[in-house]
């Protein structure tokens, strides 16, 4: 690494680590969650990106070159289609085969696990997931030997290629651009696994009324797998950076009393266990979390970043001394507003959320589609933050 790049890297890491630990850095850090949006930005389709990992790397690299944010949002959320093709997955619709080649992922609401399966799931979730749910979700795995084994192996080879190529790119980007990935590792609280992937959203909404005890027991039983998933996916020894990514979906649909009963125990335990093992987390807090702020206030201070879709100014007041807040700019402004409007809103958000530190400027959610952000808006915002986002200004 050249001296200049080394210095840039150290500056960025200091800025981010200070901010995440709820301190005041030299200036407000900036990083947008550029997901499948990077395809249209670099002039390719999403389909191309999910089949050709070098094109995926190229698209993410163009974002780094053009915007030079303080970290890069790693393209690990843009999953390798060959793996899914190999195993015959059925859970979500993919660009080019089920959807337009330029369409981002879409997840129909599926229930590969029925309510009657709760006793088995609770008794041994890993057995249930690997033995019973996998062949339902990935149809090739239900075929007889050797077809299912070959499918699993083929998927594994493709998965390994994807991780290896991306990992090599991440290393190169540190050396070449002085920029680290914001995220490393992925998992979710147990109830989100149940809702997103096993029982489905409609299913879990009915289960909390019809089978409440089983939902609680299922989350308990699932818990060790959620912790191991975070640690196994991290790809290295425990470290406070990059952050373990936890996209939370269920909470804002639940009344606080139900959030406390069903979601909170295995969610708070995951955050606390990760913290005591030396990790920090980035939670995507989708929807309006204000009713649940009192719970977030109990999480370990300085160990959590909350990407807030809504109510970030209220969050600053209520939980800004516990959680590092990320966000502030709605995608409808980024996608449909003017650069002047975006800069004005950036200024307003910084004034409200930056004092005292613990704030990273970003969009309110990940950028998925071309209309989620106009490049000129992101440029204007980035320029403004780098010039005027200093804490001594």
């Amino acid at each position, binding site marked *: 690494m050249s001296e200049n790049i080394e210095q840039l890297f150290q500056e960025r890491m200091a800025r981010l680590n200070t901010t995440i630990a709820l301190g005041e850095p030299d200036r407000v850090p900036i990083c947008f969650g550029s997901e499948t949006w990077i395809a249209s930005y670099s002039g390719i389709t999403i389909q191309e990106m999910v089949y050709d990992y070098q094109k995926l790397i190229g698209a993410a690299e163009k974002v780094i070159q053009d915007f030079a944010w303080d970290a890069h949002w790693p393209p690990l959320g843009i999953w390798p289609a060959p793996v899914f093709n190999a195993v015959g997955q059925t859970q979500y619709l993919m660009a080019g085969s089920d959807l337009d080649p330029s369409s981002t992922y879409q997840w129909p609401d599926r229930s590969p696990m029925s309510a009657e399966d709760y006793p*088995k799931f609770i008794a*041994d979730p890993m*057995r249930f997931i*690997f033995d019973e749910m996998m062949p339902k979700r990935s149809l090739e795995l239900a075929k*007889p*030997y050797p077809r299912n*084994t070959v499918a699993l192996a083929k998927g594994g080879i493709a*998965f390994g290629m994807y991780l290896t190529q991306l990992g090599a790119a991440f290393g190169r980007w540190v050396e070449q651009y002085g920029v680290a990935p914001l995220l490393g590792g992925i998992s979710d609280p147990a109830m989100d696994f149940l809702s997103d992937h096993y029982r489905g959203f409609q299913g879990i909404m009915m289960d909390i009324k019809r089978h409440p005890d089983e939902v609680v027991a299922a989350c308990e039983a699932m818990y060790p797998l959620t912790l191991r998933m975070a640690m*196994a996916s991290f790809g290295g020894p425990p470290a406070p950076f990059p952050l373990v990514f936890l996209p939370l979906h269920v909470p804002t649909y639940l009344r606080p009393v139900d959030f406390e009963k069903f979601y909170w125990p295995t969610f708070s335990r995951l955050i606390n266990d990760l913290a005591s093992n030396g990790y920090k987390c980035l939670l995507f807090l989708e929807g309006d979390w204000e009713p649940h702020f009192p719970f977030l206030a109990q999480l370990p201070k300085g160990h959590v970043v909350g990407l807030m879709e809504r109510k970030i100014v209220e969050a600053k007041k209520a939980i800004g001394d516990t959680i590092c807040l990320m966000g502030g700019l709605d995608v409808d402004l980024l996608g449909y507003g003017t650069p002047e409007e975006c800069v004005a809103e950036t200024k307003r958000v910084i004034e409200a959320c930056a004092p005292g530190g613990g704030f990273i400027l970003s969009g309110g959610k990940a950028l998925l589609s071309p209309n989620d952000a106009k490049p000129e808006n992101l440029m204007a915002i980035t320029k403004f933050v780098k010039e005027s986002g200093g804490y001594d200004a």
Partner: protein
Amino acid sequence: MPEKTQPSQDSYEGQEPYVFTIPWSEKRKEFDVSLANEEMIAMDWDMHENLLFFYLMWLGTY
């Protein structure tokens, strides 16, 4: 997993906890001779277990 068909039992009562791979300490029992440079074999055997878990959980989930 390759030889299994869809399980027909209604519960997992009486079954040992599920393992999808065995640690080296178990695998070692299959050899009744001393192994040269055993640490090398053991390290490689266990190294990929986390990646394998990640892959299988990811397939079973995403």
